[in-house]
């Protein structure tokens, strides 16, 4: 059975928008991190949608790559966040501007 890809793409676009806007407006580092995950998965959803639509396995395998990379990124990102919170508690993203030029 074939399902129209439209709703899936709309959901993916909504997820991406939520992630992007969240990344821009939130200051909590953890939440920003989750927003990045939202954007990644929005992209994954559209990959899968087009893979089904075009009957091409390439899109689905790309999703696996993204998930692996995202998992690795989560490990590194959370490690950095934990290290930051050890140095200073309750820091927002805006407090972390010691690399200012």
């Amino acid at each position, binding site marked *: 059975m074939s399902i129209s890809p439209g709703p899936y793409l709309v959901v993916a676009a909504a997820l991406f928008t939520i992630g*992007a806007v969240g*990344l*821009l*407006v939130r*200051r909590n580092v953890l939440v*920003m991190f989750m927003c990045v995950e939202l954007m990644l998965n929005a992209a994954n959803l559209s990959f899968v949608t087009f893979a089904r639509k075009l009957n091409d396995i390439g899109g689905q395998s790309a999703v696996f790559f993204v998930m692996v990379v995202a998992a690795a990124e989560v490990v590194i990102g959370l490690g950095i966040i934990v290290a930051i919170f050890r140095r200073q508690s309750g820091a927002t*993203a*805006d407090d*972390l*501007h*010691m*690399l*200012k*030029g």
Partner: protein
Amino acid sequence: MIHAAFLIPLLPLLGFALLVVAGKRLGDPLAGWVATLAVAGAFVASVIVALGLHQHHQHAQTQLIFEWLPVGGFHVNASILVDPLSMTMALFVTGVGALIHLYAIGYMHGDSRYPRFFVYLNLFIFSMLSLVLADNFVMMFLGWEGVGACSYLLVSFWFERPAAASAGKKAFVTNRVGDFGLMTAMFLIFAHVGSLTYGPVFAAAGGLGRGTATAICLLLLLGACGKSAQLPLYVWLPDAMEGPTPVSALIHAATMVTAGVYLMARVAPLLAQAPDAATTIAWVGAATALFAATVACAQNDIKRVLAYSTISQLGYMFLAVGSGAYVAGLFHMVTHAFFKALLFLGAGSVIHGMHDEQDMKRMGALRKWMPITSATFIVGWLAIAGVPPFAGFWSKDDILAAAYHKGFALWLIGFVTAGLTAYYMTRQVALVFFGRARWGTGEEAAHVAANQEGHGATPHESPWTMWVPLVALALLATFGWLINAPWHPANFLERWLDPVVGAFSVAHGPSTAIKVSLAAITTVLGLGAIGLGFVVWDRSAEHSELEPEILRQAWYIDPAYAAVIERPGEMLANFSADVIDHGLIDGSVNGVASLVRDSGRELRRLQTGYVRNYALGIAAGTAAMLAYVVVRTW
């Protein structure tokens, strides 16, 4: 016996090497004795070789030491040319040199760099000998530069005094101008002949065009003018008097400055092809002789008078060579070496006895305190003033006769110069040895007393190592003319030099009657000038009307050179430093640096450190790219 020729330059070289290694250990005065013995040995070797040459009827011989530059068809050998001219030079360089070395043992006694002085002195003798004994232009040039370097080292021997240091530099730089001419002449010779060895060059002299020969000779003249202190390159010699007095006597009166005259005599075959160049030489010499004699009349420094006198006498030698009277020029070179070395050493003895006072206006009546010095100095004075029968009379009148033959104007200049010479030397003798003692009164007595340390309070006679050379040179200045008396069997020097320069000399000079009358006129003028000078300067040391400012300042030539050469040079240097270096080169380097720094400072503001700024940038960039794609695919 000619095979001993290699010993002549070798002995001073060995003395030099020994003193370099062990000079400090030998110390004062042993180092001086080693140096003196080396030069005296060279003199003995020269005598032996000269006798051998005489036995071979003065046939020039070349002794090969080693092949120096065998490059393709171009060969330069380090070899010794034994011919009458080179042996004449070697004899008087080593003879006068040995006497001056002996003198320096006493004069330099107590100097803190005593051994080094003799190192330089021996090196100088070696260089001078390689200059005169070379059989090619390259070796000659090597010696030429060697004596120049030694001159620099010895003029600025007391380099703690700024005047001595800058005088050395001036001598060196001025000589570079002359060397330019000498080197260019060598290039020209090589381009036209393909060899720089005297033999082939002079053999090919006839084949050179007149223009080429003239160009070569004029360029050689430029070199000779530098080394022999002729107009316009004479300026270094008066300043060179900052050196120790033995140096002034040896290098700047007797030997090195005659190198130019030697060179001109050596290239006589070339000069024979270039009569215009010969005339130029004669006029340069005459002009220099007159110019320097006028300046000498108004100098107060005892050594400066002698320096200008040397320039003037060298002018006489150039006049002789330019007039084709090579023998007369070389004869005067030898007699001048005797009496001018005598005068310089006498002046040194006076300076020594007066505790480093050099101003003649603060001397006077010294004959009572320094009998040997004054007696020998008076001999030198009579010799240079041309009083018969002293040496200067004979050689000077030979030159004047030759000049008369060349042109009346040249003779007239030489004649006036002879009168001036007698006058300024009389002024010097009267100021130093006669008249009133101007050093013993009031302030000056205190000055003399303050300067003496362990010496007597009054002027004193010098030690024997200093007065023995004076006496020897005084004897030579009296009897030295016997080497070339102007009648036939006694004209030894003329017959001796005949194989070298005879063919190029003026065949028939003026008749004997003219010669005798010229000599008589000159002698009367000289005696008159002596009488006048003595009457004027014995009574009083102050005659400002006889010492016009323009003569005191040497016709303002030094300031003129400073204005014409030094000031534009300084302006160019300032322009290079301020505009080109500071503005252009530093400016571009600094400009690149500040461009990077300033742009970096501005771009830094983009790095706010806020993650959302970066995220916004990424978002905006993505949106822009999307918009671009959308617009394009529309």
